[in-house]
């Protein structure tokens, strides 16, 4: 892991240096670009720090299990709050520092500033972190006094998901690829004007940017001292405000956070959803499905990921709608169908990624309550097939969207539409079965956080096997599909001997899918039966 971190650090430094080196070579606007980039980077890091502190403060100040012991001790409330505040800073900032340092060092490498830059980077970086921490902690304290801490965590988590989704969609719809497309370039003056537009002058990140920029360019100016004073006075002020606020409301908020969560509404909606889902199944499987749906939609950390998934699908489809097919030297009808065929691999990868997040942990999600199923008359086989029945419909729907919608956007031939749809339809059966099977082979009922299950060794094995599965399917179909497609395009018939290759290939795909369903489910069943 350390090696990976060092590698990543070196990579970030190399890329940043490269970009900055390139900017230096660009006349007139090179420095503007570098300055703008610095401002953007520091603004992003500042925002991330604030956000990170909000989440960490909630945990460290209100939800941590050792807080009961701390509050029952004779420690002064100020001391307790301050210690937790410092701990929150350390907890929240280390990742931003690790990501940010190579970029800052790249600036130093390219611009060769004096020692003043490093001193300023160190103390202003610290002050910026304190300001971000202060804002984050203050926001958390105020929010917890309005909502209970458990609810606050849900709200923050949902807001963050919405924010990420909005930013992701916004970034994609801005079409940044136009910046490297000469045809999309607007006038140079407009471009320079955009670069020169200042960022918000009232944010601490702006003051730090201006100070560091002056050191990088070796410029001496009156503004430097003012900016430094602004950053530090903000840091001190926010600390004082936090201490005052903590004295007034922290303990009341902590006490409130001990309250049990009240059951929320939406029960009728869940009842309707579960009735629909379990209709065709036996009582025992219906109960499993009912329980899964309720637990899923009552856990904000789970269902909110559907928002991210939705954004992913939207951007996936949007990418296909803006493909510059008309600029390609290859004939469009060939290109479209080629892309559609290869899209199966991409869609399959997306389905696997979704599956490793939602389906692979399905068995482990029983958690320590697994004893209920073990001691019940429900057999391991029916248990796993119940899970399978639950996850098949949404995965089929997702695959339909990814393949049929994209193929319609590409305007592929009916043959290609049929091949791609049928192939993915069959592949979903295997992908889901492998998810359930591997999840049963590598269960983790004692997880602290369900996300740990997806990122485990078993999850990795699952991804590898699904990649191999999809690669074999595409490999088996590539030849036959090409032959049939070319024959259709040329209006000629297919030689008899070629059918002796085509038919076995497709039969091979069907057999592979059957094996991909049967084998993992069987192995998973045996693993669960033997599990202790």
């Amino acid at each position, binding site marked *: 892991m350390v090696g990976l971190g060092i590698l990543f650090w070196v990579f970030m430094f190399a890329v940043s240096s490269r970009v900055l080196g390139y900017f230096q070579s660009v006349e007139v606007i090179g420095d503007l670009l570098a300055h703008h980039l610095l401002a953007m980077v520091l603004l992003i890091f500042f925002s991330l720090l604030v956000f990170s502190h909000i989440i960490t403060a909630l945990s460290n100040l209100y939800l941590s299990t050792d807080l009961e012991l701390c509050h029952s001790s004779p420690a002064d409330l100020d001391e307790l709050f301050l210690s937790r505040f410092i701990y929150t800073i350390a907890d929240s900032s280390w990742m931003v520092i690790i990501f940010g340092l190579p970029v800052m060092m790249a600036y130093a490498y390219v611009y060769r500033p004096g020692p003043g830059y490093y001193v300023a980077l160190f103390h202003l970086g610290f002050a910026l972190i304190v300001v971000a921490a202060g804002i984050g902690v203050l926001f958390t304290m105020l929010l917890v006094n309005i909502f209970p801490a458990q609810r606050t965590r849900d709200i923050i988590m949902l807001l963050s998901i919405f924010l990420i989704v909005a930013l992701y969609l916004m970034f994609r719809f801005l079409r940044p690829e136009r910046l490297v497309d000469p045809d999309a370039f607007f006038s140079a003056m407009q471009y320079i004007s955009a670069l020169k537009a200042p960022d918000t002058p009232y944010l601490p990140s702006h003051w730090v940017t201006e100070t560091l920029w002056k050191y990088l360019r070796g410029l001496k100016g009156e503004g430097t001292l003012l900016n430094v004073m602004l950053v530090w006075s903000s840091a001190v002020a926010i600390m004082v405000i936090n201490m005052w606020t903590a004295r007034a409301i922290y303990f009341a908020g902590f006490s409130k956070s001990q309250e049990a969560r009240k*059951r929320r509404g939406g029960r009728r909606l869940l009842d309707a959803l579960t009735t629909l889902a379990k209709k065709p199944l036996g*009582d025992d499987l*219906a*109960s499993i499905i009912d329980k899964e749906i309720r637990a899923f939609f009552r856990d904000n950390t789970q269902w909110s990921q559907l928002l991210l998934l939705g954004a992913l699908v939207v951007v996936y489809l949007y990418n296909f709608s803006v493909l510059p097919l008309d600029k390609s030297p290859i004939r469009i009808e060939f290109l479209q169908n080629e892309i559609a065929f290869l899209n199966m691999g991409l869609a399959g990868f997306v389905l696997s990624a979704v599956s490793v997040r939602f389906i692979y942990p399905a068995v482990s999600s029983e958690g320590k309550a697994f*004893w209920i199923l073990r001691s019940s008359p*429900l057999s391991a086989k029916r248990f796993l097939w119940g899970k399978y029945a639950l996850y098949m419909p949404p995965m089929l729907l997702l695959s339909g969207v990814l393949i049929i919608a994209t193929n319609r956007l590409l305007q592929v031939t009916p043959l290609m539409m049929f091949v791609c749809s049928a192939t993915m339809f069959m592949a979903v059966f295997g992908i889901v079965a492998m998810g359930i099977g591997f999840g049963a082979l590598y269960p983790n009922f004692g997880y602290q956080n369900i996300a740990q299950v997806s990122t485990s060794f078993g999850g990795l094995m699952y991804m590898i096997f699904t990649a191999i599965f999809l690669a074999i399917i595409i490999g088996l179909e590539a030849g036959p599909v090409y032959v049939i497609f070319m024959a259709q395009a040329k209006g000629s018939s297919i030689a008899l001997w070629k059918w002796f290759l085509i038919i076995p290939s497709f039969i091979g795909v069907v057999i592979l899918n059957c094996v991909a369903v049967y084998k993992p489910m069987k192995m998973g069943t045996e693993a669960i039966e033997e599990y202790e």
Partner: protein
Amino acid sequence: MIELLNLTKRYRDFTAVDHISLEVPQGALFGFLGPNGAGKTTTLKMMAGVLKPTSGRIIINGMDLSRQPSEVKRCIGFIPDRPFLYEKLSGNEFLQFIAGLYRMNHAPYLGKRIVELLEIFELSHWADELIESYSHGMKQRLVMCAALLHKPKVLIVDEPMVGLDPKAARLVKDIFKDQAENGTTVFMSTHSLEVAQEVCQEIAIIQAGRIIASGTPDNLREKAGVATGNLEKVFLKLTEGKTGIDEKSLSSS
């Protein structure tokens, strides 16, 4: 009703349960005593089908658990020592879920049965609240509701009094006695001698994975050579000099 035949459970070099054989008739309230780490929970988990024995057989209601696991489990209600439940379900939903597992969802008496059990265990007020807001004792009582929902012929109970207040403990003892009188076999593990003395008709004492004594309380007194006195004296006498005994684990409350 319950027969354990040379039941053994081995974990690599460690033998948790060592060739134990027991017979428990129908309608008996059977106590399974032993200090911590004696093998009580392991034995009960094997009987409930949660753990697979290394060797030996478990016959419940005339059926072999290894050959007919679903049929046997249909007759059993299991109450573990630690009530891990599905936190995102309400009490009511959890019992509906259990009813589904035992294929009772379409039984006409189900609704009434759930209401009745929740009332008995004083959980009616909390029936529609999520389990994550329940205290430990409430969770324990909900598990008992679930175990009794399908009217099992055998109740396997592991340390039922843990986390219960005196009122709840009294209620649970009365329920077990009532079940036994109505023909349900109750197989209960406890390290509380007082509870065993109060409710159990027959007792087996396990230590280091082996049964060291079994019988009625009078039988055990005779074996221990203790004419009078409570079960604590009997227990200490029977287990004295044996490895693994931990006198502090003998609870009189």
